[in-house]
């Protein structure tokens, strides 16, 4: 960018030619005196401190003893002090003056508070920045307070202020110079005028004067103003350099509206005593710091990529630079496909959010295929897989089961272990996380089941697992007619003559609309009639099932949300009618409710309404209530990968435990894991409420954290059995030959996505390289990554420590 020399007055400076600049300040000034240019000189006149600003404690010592007070004051350009003094519980409005002089500065203040008067009078001493005050003080007024004594103010925090003078000198006739400029200090700016001969100059303003006389080693000077008199010598007047092109740390940048930006600062170019301006105006919400040129703020509008010219200018001239800024829709509110190239942590984020863990093989697969292709497999749910057959055979079958009915008579514990087994072994872990989402959503529990019907929960869970990527309308119907739900929320006893509102209420409050949203008690009464008719029966094998008893169904017309469901429909027709009326509510409250909940489970809480609305429209218009295409978009949209979705949720116990085991391979017996999850308060198949489990933050109790540690403890303590089964922590370590303590710490931390600080890393390397003695001391014992015993003791111990890292509690 071109440097331009100013020829127009700015900030009140006159722009006139100067022909004899060389007269000033010796060689330094001689370079700048070309015809047609403005010559600008500036210098700092140091008269510290020239203003008393801040809060200072003082002690008033009298015959009664000492009492503390504080003084909060500021000083104007004339040395007038105003502020408050707080003393003995009273707040005095004080005024007075301060006079700074080299040898003896004085402070004099008077204040009143009600009928009480306070006077402080004394001497300021000590060097710049460490001044003290000593003097007399008196309090008059209420008898209880009246006192007179010695006042000591500690001014150690007194600011060291300088007066800064900027002048433009222009040569007139007969070797005389005229000058205009400013003096500034303490936030006050005083306009100066003056001039004189080259050897003798003076500048005056309303409350500041400065005179200079040429001496051998520069000017001698005297100033008066801002409450201070000062003098010095050896002052050199330097010509002010013209600014050079400002260069920004990030010359081309894309910001997201709504997020505070990282300050874009100037890293190149100079602008002595200058100001910065920008043209055209920055996108709304962004601002340029006129002194530093830094651009900060929070963009509030979307604007296309555009070039902005930033001009650095001072009294000597200006220079311009450019930067390019775009503000775009905040990624956290964008349901658009994430088109950028994903980084390794993006892939790890994708896998750990959707599947709770990421092994090396998983990472390799998703990185080679890309997320979109990877989703083809992830979103197509196979049934009756090898893992499902094995889990059913291992966990559900009892020796007493009649032939042909194997697995139909499990205990509630067996059912819980069955799903836990699946979570540990499922070929498609996403099927389990989405199943668990719906389990949390339709929170049912085996605790309400009669012992013989625990298989209801197996069928229920499979509906959620298989239907987790299916049609949402179908899922609602399947769940409503599901024996587990008909037991859990009393549908099996909801009859024409004795309607039961339990399911009707929760269907809207928890499953489709959200609490107190749209529905009323009248709708619940009508809904209960529509949901009536199912009853529980038992077959010849003693297995329960649900079927419609037409005598129990209320066949009258029902009015829900102002819409009439005609009379004489069958139970199943009524079920479909209620679902369809609900899904068809104007404003799409169901789609908003459910897409927001899915988003919150997989990304972050409280998404912007703009995003929720877009997701709801997409789910209805494009996906036609099909979950698979919606989930595909959810897992590839910009908001899913936004920073808000990182370290944004506390892991629930199941995710924490299952995630650790599958990431490390350090399996527990299913029975042990089931017991630990029960202790941790999140046993699959036993939702504590119809509303599922608590939110993430609620898991952070001291007991919960202790028990998480206990879960990992069992995983790492299971050395022998795991090793006999071919499971060894060596599989998690760096390749043979590279198994140093440092490499081992780094590799395991990365695999668990733990963010170690440098201090953490140092300490954990030390952990691997030491052993503890019985008396509590430690001894050096270099880590050998090839040693089985070191791996079994130290690397497993390291995993237990890493799993306790605060960043491992959060996903």
């Amino acid at each position, binding site marked *: 960018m071109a440097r331009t020399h100013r020829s127009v007055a700015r900030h009140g400076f006159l722009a006139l030619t100067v022909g004899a600049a060389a007269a000033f300040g010796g060689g330094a000034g001689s370079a700048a005196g070309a015809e047609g240019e403005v010559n600008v000189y500036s210098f700092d006149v140091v008269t510290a401190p020239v203003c008393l600003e801040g809060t200072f404690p003082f002690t008033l010592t009298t015959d009664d003893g000492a009492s503390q007070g504080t003084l909060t004051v500021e000083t104007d350009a004339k040395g007038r002090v105003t502020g408050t003094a707080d003393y003995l519980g009273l707040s005095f409005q004080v005024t007075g003056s301060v006079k700074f002089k080299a040898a003896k500065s004085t402070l004099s203040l008077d204040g009143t508070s009600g009928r009480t008067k306070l006077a402080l009078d004394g001497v300021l001493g000590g060097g710049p920045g460490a001044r003290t005050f000593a003097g007399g003080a008196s309090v008059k007024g209420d008898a209880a307070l009246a006192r007179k004594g010695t006042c000591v103010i500690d001014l150690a925090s007194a600011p060291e202020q300088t007066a800064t003078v900027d002048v433009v000198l222009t040569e007139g006739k007969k070797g005389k110079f005229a000058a205009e400029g400013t003096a500034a200090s303490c936030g006050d700016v005083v306009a100066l005028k003056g001039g004189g001969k080259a050897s003798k100059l003076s500048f005056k303003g309303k409350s500041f004067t400065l005179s200079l006389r040429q001496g051998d080693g520069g000017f001698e000077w005297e100033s008066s103003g801002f409450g201070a008199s000062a003098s010095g010598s050896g002052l050199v007047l330097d010509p002010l350099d013209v600014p050079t092109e400002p260069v920004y740390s990030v010359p081309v940048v894309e910001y997201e509206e709504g997020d505070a930006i990282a300050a874009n600062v100037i890293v190149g170019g100079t602008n002595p005593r200058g100001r910065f301006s920008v043209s055209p105006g920055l996108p709304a919400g962004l601002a340029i710091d006129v002194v530093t040129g830094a651009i900060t703020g929070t963009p509030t509008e979307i604007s296309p990529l555009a070039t902005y010219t930033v001009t650095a200018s001072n009294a000597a001239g200006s220079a311009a630079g450019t930067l390019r800024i775009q503000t775009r829709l905040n990624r956290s509110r964008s349901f658009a496909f994430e088109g950028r190239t994903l980084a390794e942590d993006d892939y790890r984020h994708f896998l750990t959010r959707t599947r709770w863990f990421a092994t090396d093989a998983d990472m390799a697969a998703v990185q080679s295929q890309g997320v979109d292709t990877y989703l083809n497999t992830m979103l197509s749910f196979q049934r009756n897989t090898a893992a499902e057959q094995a889990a059913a055979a291992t966990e559900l079958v009892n020796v007493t089961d009649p032939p042909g009915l194997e697995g139909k008579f499990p205990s509630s514990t067996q059912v819980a272990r069955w799903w836990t087994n699946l979570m540990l072994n499922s070929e498609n872990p996403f099927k389990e996380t989405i199943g668990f989402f719906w389990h949390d959503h339709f929170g*049912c*529990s085996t605790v*309400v089941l009669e012992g013989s019907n625990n298989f209801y929960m197996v069928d229920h869970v499979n509906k959620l697992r298989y239907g987790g990527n299916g049609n949402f309308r179908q899922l609602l119907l399947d769940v409503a007619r599901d024996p587990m739900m008909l037991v859990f929320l*009393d549908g099996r*006893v909801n*009859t024409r003559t*004795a309607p*039961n*509102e*339990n399911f009707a*209420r929760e269907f809207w*409050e928890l499953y489709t609309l959200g*609490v107190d949203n749209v529905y009323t008690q009248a709708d619940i009464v009508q809904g209960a009639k529509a949901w009536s008719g199912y009853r529980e029966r038992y077959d010849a094998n003693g297995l329960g099932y649900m079927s419609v008893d037409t005598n129990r169904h209320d066949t009258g017309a029902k009015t829900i949300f102002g819409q009439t469901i005609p009379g004489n429909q069958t139970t199943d027709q009524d079920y479909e009618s209620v679902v369809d009326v609900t899904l068809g509510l104007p404003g799409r409250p169901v789609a908003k409710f459910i897409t927001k909940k899915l988003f919150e489970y997989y990304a972050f*809480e*409280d998404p912007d309404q703009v995003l929720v609305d877009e997701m709801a429209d997409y789910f209805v218009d494009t996906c036609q209530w099909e979950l698979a295409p919606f989930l595909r978009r959810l897992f590839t949209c910009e908001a899913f990968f936004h920073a808000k979705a990182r*370290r*944004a*949720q*506390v892991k629930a116990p199941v995710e924490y435990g299952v995630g650790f085991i599958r990431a490390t391979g350090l399996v527990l017996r299913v029975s042990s894991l089931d017991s630990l999850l029960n*202790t941790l*308060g999140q046993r699959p198949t036993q939702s*504590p*409420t*119809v*509303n*599922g*489990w*608590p*939110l993430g*933050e*609620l*898991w*952070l*109790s*001291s*007991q919960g*954290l*202790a028990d998480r*540690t*206990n879960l990992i*403890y069992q995983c790492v303590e299971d050395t022998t059995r795991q090793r006999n089964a071919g499971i060894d922590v060596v599989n998690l370590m760096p390749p043979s030959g590279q198994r140093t303590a440092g490499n081992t710490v780094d590799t395991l931390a990365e695999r668990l996505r733990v963010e170690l*600080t440098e*201090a*953490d890393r140092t*300490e*954990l390397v*030390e*952990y691997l390289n*030491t*052993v503890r003695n019985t008396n509590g001391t430690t001894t050096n014992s270099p880590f050998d990554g090839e040693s089985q015993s070191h791996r079994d*003791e*130290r690397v497993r*111990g390291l995993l*237990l420590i890493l799993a*306790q*890292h*605060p*960043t491992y*509690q*959060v996903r």
Partner: protein
Amino acid sequence: MSPASPLHLPKNVSRRDILKLSLAGAGITALGPLGRFCAPASAAPQNLKRMIVINMFGGCDTLNMVIPVSLSSYSSRRTSAAGSVAVDTSGVPALGGPFATQLYKLHPSLPRIRALYDEGSVAFVQRVGYPSANLSHFESQDIFSTGVRNGFGPLGVSPSGWIARYANDNAPTSMGAVGLGVGRLLDFIGGGTNPLLVSSLGAFNISGTASNSTNARLHRSQYAKEMIQRYSGAGLNQQSRDALDQAYTLTSAVQTALASYTTAVSWANTSLSQRMRDAAVLIEGGFETRIFYTGYGGFDTHSSQGQSTGALPSLFTQLDDAVGAFAQDMKNRGVWNDIAIVVITEFGRRNYVNGSAGTDHGHGFCALVIGGAVTGGSYGPDLTNQDLNAEHLAYAVDFRSIYKHILGEHLAADPAPVFPEPLTIETNLQIV
């Protein structure tokens, strides 16, 4: 049948707001309070007043707990061809002692509480509730937990639970208020302190940290502890760190108290009795806990509720065992007079039996206040046939009147900042 619900933790908007606010103070949560929990002493401190809340989660049919035997509508409303929930009290002794009454009897499954009544240590408060009853378990529990009916906005107070506010002002240590077996109940959330919330004291330990563990285990737990203490982060990371740090510190202190507790009392093997035993352990251990909160579920008796025996009576037996054993243990230690137990539920049930031999969600209920500090008897308006002929028991005493009274008169705390919302009905109770 409906779910037995040990936890009632709704996931709604107001809950989220509270959580956010609780995060804001997370940085100061654990460090200050943690260093200041009271070390166990050899015996329970005398004259340290305690409040214990027992919540009957699910909405208890208290008409079958404190039974209005003199009202004809009681049995008529509770009997139907499809089933009955009326309790036959013909064989049940009348309520005697200094506050003898012919109007009510306690359910036959509550003999030990009846004995405490006869000693003058049981008060019951009729028609407890709050304005505009909400029939959702979760909403109603939220109102009990926050102590606020009409939202925090008009109050200028950050969303928080009432115990959180109490602890902030009056007992700002991790042991000042303790939740036993109630998860992270909203009552405790949203303050600057981090109260101890445990499922049970016995389960509150960390494997491999006991002093007799192997050197390898002690080695790694030492490095884990130091890593946690050293950690400094933001947001949830820091909140996790605080909870971990607290886990290490408190498990050690609590296990010491548990190991040194001895008692002459026989505690039932039910969750409620065991949690009340835990409270006794902490009292005997010298912890200066002012509020204990525990509870148990199963009261959502929409069907097959039972009469003299059955689902609900078995829950009453659990309450009776727990309160009876606790009272005896406290008497043995000479601190029964320091105790006030408040028994609540999120709402009462309908006055009449439904079609499934159960009762549906209702409004007002009868609260119990039990303890050596209590002046027994009947509080609140006596029930009438007209009350029972209505759909619900209309509320006449705000539950916050009970809490405020106990806080002010028993715990010597200022109840105003704990319950900042003006009450529509303010009842001047003199229970303690």
